[in-house]
C-alpha cells in the first residue's frame, strides 16, 4: 500500500484557493472533479445515457414497429441513400425497390425505380404507437412518411421475415439494456449486505454465510438455467420468464462479490479509524456503510462496470444458444440468432449489425468504469 501523498500548497492566491477547495470538498465532489478530466469516460457516459434514452423512446426513434413485416422486402440489404437525383442535388432520398428472384443464382435482387425519389425526413408520421403504454403518437424520428407507395427506409436492411433491423435493434435494446442491469443491482445489494455482515462480524455468522456461498457456487449455471426455464409457468411470456430467471440468477450470483467484500472488510475493520468510529459509538450499519465500504469504492465500481456488460453479453450469449430470449421477443441475442449461419455470413452480412450495439455497450461501460475507477481511487492523483 502506498502512503497517501498530501498535496503540497503551491504559491499564489489562486492556487491556494484551489487547494483549499480540495481540502474541504466531499468525497463525491472529489470523484466528480477527477472524473470530469477523463474525456473518454465523459463522452462514453453521454453516449450511454443516449443509448438508454433511445431504448426508452424506442417507438419514436425506430421508424417501424418491432414486428412489422414488409411483404416483398425480405432479406433486403440496407437501403441505399442517394443525394443526387437526375444529376442535380436533391438531398438525402431513397427510391422504391422491386424485388426479383434471379433465376440463376436464386438470390433476391432489388431494383431501384429511379423515377420516384422519396426524401428522408425527420419527425415524420408513420406507424401509430403507444410509448410505454402512456404516450400515443405516430411521429417517428426518421423515415419516409406513411404516404401510400412511400418506399420504406431500412438503414440496417431487413431480416428473413421482412422486418426492419434498425428498428428491431432499438426495441431489442429495451430488454438487453434493462433486464441484465436489474439483475446486477440485485446482485450488488445482496452481495454487499451479506459479504459485509460476514466480514465485519465474523465468527459463526461468517461461517454460515461462507458455507452457503460454497454451496451456491458449486451449482452449475447452465443446467440451472435450463431447469428454471422449464419450471417457470408456461403461460408467461418469454420476457417475463427471462426477467424471472435473471432475478433468480442474481439471487444465486452474488457470491463472488460477497467473498471480495468480506475480504476487504476483514482487512479494513482492523484499521484505526474503525476503532475510532466504534469508540465514538457509531452503529454497526453506519460503520460498515459509512466508514468501511467507501474504502473500496473503486473496486466496487470496477466490478460493477464489468458486471453490466458481462451480463448483457450473457443475455446475448444465452439467447444465441437458444436458452435465453426466444422470438417473438426481441433482444440483441435474438437478433443475432438469425446471423449464426453460413447464409448470413456469406450473403447477408447486414444481419450481424446488431452485434455492433453489443460491442458498443460493452466498450462504453468499460470506459466509464475506467474513468470512475481512476476518480474514486483515493491513492492516485
Amino acid at each position, binding site marked *: 500500500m502506498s502512503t497517501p501523498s498530501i498535496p503540497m500548497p503551491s504559491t499564489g492566491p489562486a492556487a491556494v484557493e484551489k487547494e483549499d477547495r480540495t481540502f474541504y470538498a466531499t468525497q463525491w465532489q472529489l470523484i466528480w472533479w477527477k472524473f470530469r478530466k477523463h474525456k473518454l469516460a465523459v463522452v462514453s457516459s453521454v453516449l450511454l445515457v443516449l443509448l438508454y434514452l433511445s431504448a426508452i423512446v424506442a417507438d419514436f426513434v425506430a421508424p417501424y414497429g418491432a414486428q412489422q413485416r414488409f411483404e416483398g422486402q425480405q432479406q433486403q440489404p440496407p437501403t441505399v441513400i442517394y443525394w443526387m437525383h437526375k444529376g442535380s442535388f436533391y438531398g438525402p432520398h431513397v427510391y422504391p425497390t422491386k424485388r426479383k428472384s434471379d433465376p440463376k443464382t436464386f*438470390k433476391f435482387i432489388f431494383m431501384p425505380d429511379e423515377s420516384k425519389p422519396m426524401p428522408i425526413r425527420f419527425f415524420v408520421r408513420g406507424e401509430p404507437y403507444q410509448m410505454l403504454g402512456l404516450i400515443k403518437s405516430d411521429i417517428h424520428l426518421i423515415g419516409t412518411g406513411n404516404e401510400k407507395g412511400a418506399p420504406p427506409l431500412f438503414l440496417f436492411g431487413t431480416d428473413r421475415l421482412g422486418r426492419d433491423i434498425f428498428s428491431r435493434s432499438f426495441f431489442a435494446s429495451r430488454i438487453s439494456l434493462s433486464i441484465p442491469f436489474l439483475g446486477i443491482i440485485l446482485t450488488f445489494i445482496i452481495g454487499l449486505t451479506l459479504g459485509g455482515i460476514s466480514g465485519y462480524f465474523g465468527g459463526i455468522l461468517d461461517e454460515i454465510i461462507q458455507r452457503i456461498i460454497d454451496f451456491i457456487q458449486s451449482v452449475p449455471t447452465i443446467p440451472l438455467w435450463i431447469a428454471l426455464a422449464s419450471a417457470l409457468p408456461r403461460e408467461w411470456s418469454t420476457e417475463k420468464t427471462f426477467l424471472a430467471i435473471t432475478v433468480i440468477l442474481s439471487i444465486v450470483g452474488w457470491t463472488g462479490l460477497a467473498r471480495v467484500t468480506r475480504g476487504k472488510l476483514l482487512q479494513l475493520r482492523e484499521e484505526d479509524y474503525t476503532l475510532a468510529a466504534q469508540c465514538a459509538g457509531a452503529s454497526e450499519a453506519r460503520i460498515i456503510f459509512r466508514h468501511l465500504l467507501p474504502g473500496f469504492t473503486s473496486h466496487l465500481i470496477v466490478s460493477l462496470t464489468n458486471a453490466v456488460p458481462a451480463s448483457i453479453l450473457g443475455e446475448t450469449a444465452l439467447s444465441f444458444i437458444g436458452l435465453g430470449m426466444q*422470438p417473438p421477443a426481441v433482444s440483441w441475442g435474438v437478433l443475432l440468432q438469425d446471423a449464426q449461419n453460413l447464409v448470413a455470413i456469406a450473403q447477408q452480412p447486414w444481419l450481424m449489425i446488431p452485434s455492433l450495439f453489443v460491442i458498443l455497450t460493452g466498450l462504453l461501460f468499460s470506459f466509464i468504469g475506467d474513468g470512475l475507477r481512476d476518480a474514486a481511487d483515493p491513492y492516485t492523483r
Partner: protein
Amino acid sequence: MNSSSQKSRRVISFYAVSMMAAMTLLLSACGQPQVVEKIVEKEVKVEVTKEVEKVVEKVVEKEVIKEVEKKVEVIVTATPAVVKPAFEKLQEAPMLAEKVKAGALPPVDQRVPKDPFIVGPGVIVADMDLPDWQPGKYGGTLRSAHSSANWSPDFFVMDNEGLLMAPGISTEGVRGNVLKDFKVSEDGKTIMFALREGMKWSDGTPVTTEDVRFTYEDMLKNPELFKSFPARWKTGAKPDGQEPTIKIIDLFNFEMSYPEAYGGILRQFTIESWVGYTEWLNPAHYLKQFHKKYADPAKLEALLKEAKLKPDEWPALFNQKRCQNWDVNQPRCIGYPSLYPWLLASSDNSQLSFERNPYYWKVDTQGQQLPYIDRLVSAQVQDVEAVNLKVLAGEVDFLRESTALVKVPLYKENEDKAGFNVVLLDMHVDSSALFLNQTFTNTEQAADWAKYSQDVKFRKALSMAINRPEIIDTIYFGFAALPLKDVGEESSKYDPDAANKLLDEIGLTNKDAEGMRLGSDGKPFTILLEHGAHAPDLAPIAEIVGEDMKKVGINMQVKKIDPTLWGTRRGNNDLEATMFWTHDQGWGGGVGFNEALGSAGTAWDQYYNSQGKAGVQPPDWLMKGYELKAAWWTAVPGSPEWQKATEDGHAWQRDNLPIIKIVEGVKYPMIASKKLGNVAKSGFAIGLNFAGEQLFFK
C-alpha cells in the same frame, strides 16, 4: 430440348407397356425407337402369359394344399413379368475380381442369385424423373457428411432395402425387391411371395424361407421378443386388426394369408416409412445362436455372462445382437449378415465408411453387379452448418438431409467452384402444419378451449387467418404451394375478414382494448403454441402464424421449447398447440392419415391405440377418419378402390380440418457432385437418395 422431350415421351410409353421388357430390349434397340415399341408389345404379352402359366404349373405339380390350388387359379399379377437378362456374363467390380483371384471370394456367378434384380431405365427411379438412365462404371468413393454420432441419414436411406419396392418411392408400380415376386389372390386375402434363388447374405449363406419362418415363428410370434404382433402387419394397419398366417411352401416360396383383405400390405412391404427387409427376413443361421429355442444352453449362458445379463434375459441379448435396418450405421453391426449394397466397414468418431457388399443381388442391364461405387465415406462434423461448410468446400459428393432451401443461393454461388449441382426435388415431409390438440385440458380456459377448438368453424377461421402466400414467398422462396388437397381452396385462402366473421359467429365476440377476443372468464382467449423447432422452417412459420392470429383477435403465445420437453408434453396430452411437419401423400400412413388422426386430439389418439383402455373416446367424425384409413390400407395400391379411398381421405381432411396444414409440395435441394451419373431430375428427394446403387462416377 425438342429431342429430349421426344425421348422422354418415348420412354414413358415404354414404361406403360412394361418396364422389364423394355429394359431388355432398349440397349439392343437404341437408335430405332419406333420399331422397338412394336416388338415390346408383342414380347410382353408372351412373357406375361408364360410366367403365369409357369407359376400355376409349378404349384399344381407340387400339390401343396387344395386351397392354394384354388386360389392360384384366380391369382392376379401386380408386378411386371420377370424376363431373362439380356447379358451373357455377369461382371464384377475390379476390387472384387482381385479378391476372387486371390481365392478370398467365390466367383461372381456364385454370389449373385439366379434371377437377380435387374436395374435399368425406370426401375429404381421412374423414367420421367430420370429419362437418361445409363449403365455406369465401377469405382470411386462417395463422400458425404453428417452431424450426429453414428447416424448418417443419407447413407441409411441409400443402404436400406425393402422386401418390395416402387420406383422413386412412389405409391404405384409396386414390384419385387429383396423378394423376387409376389402375387395377390383376387380376394386380396392371400399373397404368394417368392425369394430369389441363390441370393446370399453378406457372409455367403443362402437366403431361404427358413429366414422368413424364423422371423415369423420365433421372433414376431415369440411373446418374449414381441409383446404384441406389430399393428403394421395386421389388417388395415389397425391395432385391433387381424394377424396373418405364414405358410412355407418350399425353400424359396411362402404364402401370407389374412382372414380379410389387406391390399395395403404391399405398400407396407415397400420402403415406405423406412420399413426394411429386416421386418420379415432375418439371418436365422446367425441369430439362432442367441435364441433360447435353438442355442446351445451352455454357449448361450456364456454369451449372457459376457454381456453382463441375467440368465433369463436372452431377449435382451438377442436384440443387442440383431441389427435392424435402422442400425446400418451402428459399429456393432460391422460384419452382421445383411443384404445392403454397402456394408459398414469401419466407424470411428470422425467418419463412417462403407464398402460394397460382394453378395449384392442387383445387376444392371449389362450384367454388371451393383453398386457401381466402391465406398461410401461420411465425415462426422459438429453441426448442420459445418456439414454445409464441407459442401461449399467441395468435400461432399452427395447430401440430402442437411440441406436447406434457405441455403440455395449460397449453394448456387459455390456450385462451379466446389464442383456440385443443386438438384431441386420434392420433399416427402413437406407440409408444416398447425396442430391444435382438441383434448388439451391443462389451462384455466379449458372449457372455452374444448368448445372452440372442437368447432370446425373455429379451425377454419384460424386457417383463413394465416397469410399463406407470404409464408410461401418468405420461407419457401416460392417453392411450395397452397394446401389445396388437404385444406381446400376456401380454407387455405388468406381472408382475415372471413376469419373474423367466423369467429364472431361462434361466439368469440367480446374484445379487450387491444382488440383481443375474450374467453368466458373475461381474460383474452389465449392459445399457447409451443414448438421444438425440429425443422428450420417451423420457428419462423410459428412466428408469422402467431402474428397473423393477433390480427384476427386471437391471442396466440408462441414459444420455442426444448425438443425433448416437447416430446414429453406431446405424449402427455400437455401441448395445446404446436407446429410440426406432416407427411406427404402415401408416405407414412397414407394421405397424411397418421398426423391428421393422431394430432387432432392426443387423448383421442390414446383411446384409439389402446383400444379404449386410456384416453378419451373420439367423436364420430374422427372415428370416420379411422375407418377411412383402414379402407385405404385394405385396398390394393393403384386400384380404383384405392384411388377412391385416397380421394375420400383428402375430402375428409378438407371437411374436418383435423390439423391445419400450411403448405404442400415443398421443394428440397440436394447436392450431387457434377461427376455423378444417374442423378434424378424430379420426384422425391428420398427417391434419388434411395437409388444409390445406380449412381456412378462419370
